[in-house]
């Protein structure tokens, strides 16, 4: 006990204690700062070394596979896109969920309303355009550098159609200041990069 007390009185011991505390203080402060920075950028695009383990099965565009039942985009006010990339009006939807390809207004792989940056003003056209077979490299590039915040979503996606449905939805990348769209005219994006941030 006595030894300990005497030791504590020594100046160099106090110095070491102070030094260690200082180091601890500085490192923890810096770490916290780093963490807040990281948190802020959680949903922004990460550097290319980070990959999410996506497992999307792309279907090759040339396969004219026969399909009896279609999934479709369900939600549309007037339009729907089926998994073969056809966009049709609700009234032209067949009972099996596929678009009636013989209806005059039905179109496949249509990029109507889409801009050069891969953002469209109508969701159904975004999905249809995204389903074009030649969009596969673009989508793969996106998946390979997708933000960490999208990991849940894009690792759960299983095929090209689900990927396009999910990719075209508005997301954290569609907004600025949280409660406004970056581009309210073209907010559904299949492309690699989100809409430009508008100057405040």
């Amino acid at each position, binding site marked *: 006990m006595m030894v300990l007390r005497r030791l504590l009185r020594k100046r160099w011991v106090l110095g070491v204690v102070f030094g260690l505390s200082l180091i601890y203080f500085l490192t923890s402060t810096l770490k916290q700062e780093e963490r807040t920075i990281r*948190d*802020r950028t*959680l*949903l922004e695009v990460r550097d290319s070394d980070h990959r999410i383990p996506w497992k999307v099965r792309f279907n090759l565009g040339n396969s004219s596979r026969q399909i009896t039942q279609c999934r479709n985009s*369900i*939600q*549309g*006010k*007037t339009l729907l896109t089926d998994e073969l990339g056809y966009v049709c009006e*609700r*009234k*032209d*939807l*067949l*009972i099996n969920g596929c678009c*009636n390809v013989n*209806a005059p207004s039905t179109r496949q792989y249509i990029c109507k309303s889409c801009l050069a940056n891969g953002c469209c003003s109508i969701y159904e056209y975004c999905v249809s355009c995204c389903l074009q077979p030649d969009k596969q490299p673009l989508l793969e590039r996106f998946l390979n550098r997708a933000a960490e*915040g*999208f990991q*849940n*979503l894009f690792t*759960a*996606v299983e095929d090209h159609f*689900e990927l396009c*449905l*999910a990719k075209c*939805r*508005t*997301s*954290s990348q*569609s*907004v600025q*200041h*949280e*409660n*406004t*769209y970056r581009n*309210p005219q073209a907010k559904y994006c299949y492309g690699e990069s989100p809409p430009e941030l508008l100057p*405040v």
Partner: protein
Amino acid sequence: MITLLCTSCLYTNWGFLPVVGMEGEGGAKSSSDHTPNVEALSSLSVTNCSQLTLKLEFSTKVVEHEYIVGFTGYFSAKARSLYISSALRSAGDGTLEWHIVPRENPASDFPSDFELVHIRQASPSSLLTLEDHPYIKRVTPQRKVFRSLKYIPSGVCCGPSPATSPRSCRQMCSGRWDTPVRKGPLTLSFSTHLLQNILKCRSVKLLNKITSISLACAGSGVKVAVFDTGLSEKHPHFKNVKERTNWTNEKTLDDGLGHGTFVAGVIASMRECQGFAPDSELHIFRVFTNNQVSYTSWFLDAFNYAILKKIDVLNLSIGGPDFMDHPFVDKVWELTANRVIMVSAIGNDGPLYGTLNNPADQMDVIGVGGIDFEDNIARFSSRGMTTWELPGGYGRVKPDIVTYGSGVRGSGMKEGCRSLSGTSVASPVVAGAVTLLASTVLNRELVNPASMKQALIASARRLPGVNMFEQGHGKLDLIRAYQILNSYRPQASLSPSYIDLTECPYMWPYCSQPIYYGGMPTIVNVTILNGMGVTGRIVDKPIWQPYLPQNGDHIDVAISYSPVLWPWAGYLAVSISVAKKAASWEGIAQGHVMVTVASPAENDSEVGGELTSTVKLPIKVKIVPTPPRSKRVLWDQYHNLRYPPGYFPRDNLRMKNDPLDWNGDHIHTNFRDMYQHLRSMGYFVEVLGAPITCFDASQYGTLLMVDSEEEYFPEEITKLRRDIDNGLSLIIFSDWYNTSVMRKVKFYDENTRQWWMPDTGGANIPALNDLISVWGMAFSDGLYEGDFTLADHDMYYASGCSIARFPEDGIVIAKNLKDQGAGAWFNVGQQPCWLTGNFLICVSLVQI
């Protein structure tokens, strides 16, 4: 005449906050007698219960000499007795011995539509004469009903749950039926058939505080998402947590607050404090940090994941005032359009009116308010009409339904149970009920966000003495909802389903003032729910059909409606005004509006087929002769800024409680007391939803401007001056406006990541000064506070300006108050702040 009265604005929580916060109120209660069903019940244990089934026996016996006399309407006890005696007297059988059997229950003070009569030696003829009476509908013999509930060992549980341990099993099934079943008109009548269907195995909370049943297999096959503060991994109450995901910047999936665990427990806990649907597939989305921070962007990504996972029911015990947050509102629409049934808490900002939270105020969402176990609307439950429609319209009815939200028991953060209050609690009660319903419905195809909402509101039990802007369609009734849903055919329906402007108090405030020729049209914002499909349209146009014998031609009805009903819903705005020929007429006018809704038929083999559904909206109004000008007061709604005005800030670094006036001001919301007072003094109050240039001032005695935030156009100023010269009175309630205070109440908004500075003070005093300068009047930018007495009435002047200028021949009633600019406490919202010189220091009241 100009009156000054400075009210401080009414503030509440900004942005998305978990909607619990009334711990004090519920906490005390719940520990005593209001612990529903759980603990008292679980003491009775039944062994080997995984092989038990519930059997209900039912038999009846006629009671001799006793008859139930049913009337055509609701009459008081005195009137009923009068009718029966007059009916029996006309039978001419003077020897008939009869008396009314007294029914002593809480309902006996209220009018009733039946009477129990004891008649000795009743002959068939005397019973027939009884039925001849104009007010008597029918006479039936009284029956005694015997009901017994038993557990009987039987086969397998439904659902994939044979792996339950004996312990958990015993707790799930413990003798729930040994509780008294309340007798009287409120007792739920359930049939054997129904119980066997719903509660195939074990069951169920009947949402009656006394009767409770609980099912282990309830909810199986339904995917429920809980968007909240997370859930710890090995919580003992949950057996089917399918997935937990984190959408926040904190690296954890666990709940550090207890809010999310509680909510999940109310839906799906399988032991102790049991939830509704223990077998449902739980998807836990952590979207709040332990500091209750959340961003719209986190929600957007999490919602997308919920769509991908094909969630069936999604509980959002959160809300915020910002319905102008377009990305969020659009996303909620997208969810329901993908058949996700959204259940959300209406908010904890009551008892103030105009305090509904988004997204619960959306047409496609089931918005849930809270009641206590005595069926009173819980004080905290947000209420009032929706504010999306202002200033042009009036506002829709919300919440949709109410259910228990006070002192409800749910799962504790790590283990055990606790009780909480708040609409956060009421919302999962409904979400749990919806899950249970969805899992038991025979045809799952028919379940969609609209049909579920239709079933809930059609089956809800209306609470007496409460208006529709507080209770919506009434209290959740699970059994009736089940019955409706199981016999459901896709159709459209309206909310409210009728417009009776004479019905008080349910249709308050409509019923509080009759309509008259020349008044501002009465607008009722009706919601069309369309269970036939996510998208629909109105065929042709809605048609107004006046009932000529009921004076229907005395009113004019104009209708506007959604061009497309999407998702699952749309609006129908009914504008009612009195026809010129009824300018001095008094009476009741009736008619109805017919609407036909069509949706593409999805299961039709014929392409292009449509389902249609026609609904009728009965309308009934009371008309009086136009009151004299001096009795007519016009409330200026147009210059109260539409709220939320644009993009509203959410959180505040310095002041945790929010700093802004998001409740806005309306004569039926936060100035409701003033409205009631004016009405009781015989004034007729109308609302001006258009610029001042748009009304005929010769019809009105007074224009009322309260805390106006909007500026005035030069044309408006010119017109108002002319109107005042022609005899219009003007009452202005000003508020404070002090630029140095405004600079100090600026704050950083975490949500939009911007600094925000108020556009005006409590009112836009510079604009008001422009308006009144011509009469030599002006308000100051000072800030005062204090008590005063006027006509024996003690008043408190919370914080407001003073009168800077007033004409010499005018009358000023003056009182020296404390100058807050010199250093004083004053309220910014509900928050005490100390203002001195250049400093404003506010005390934060952090609430959970």
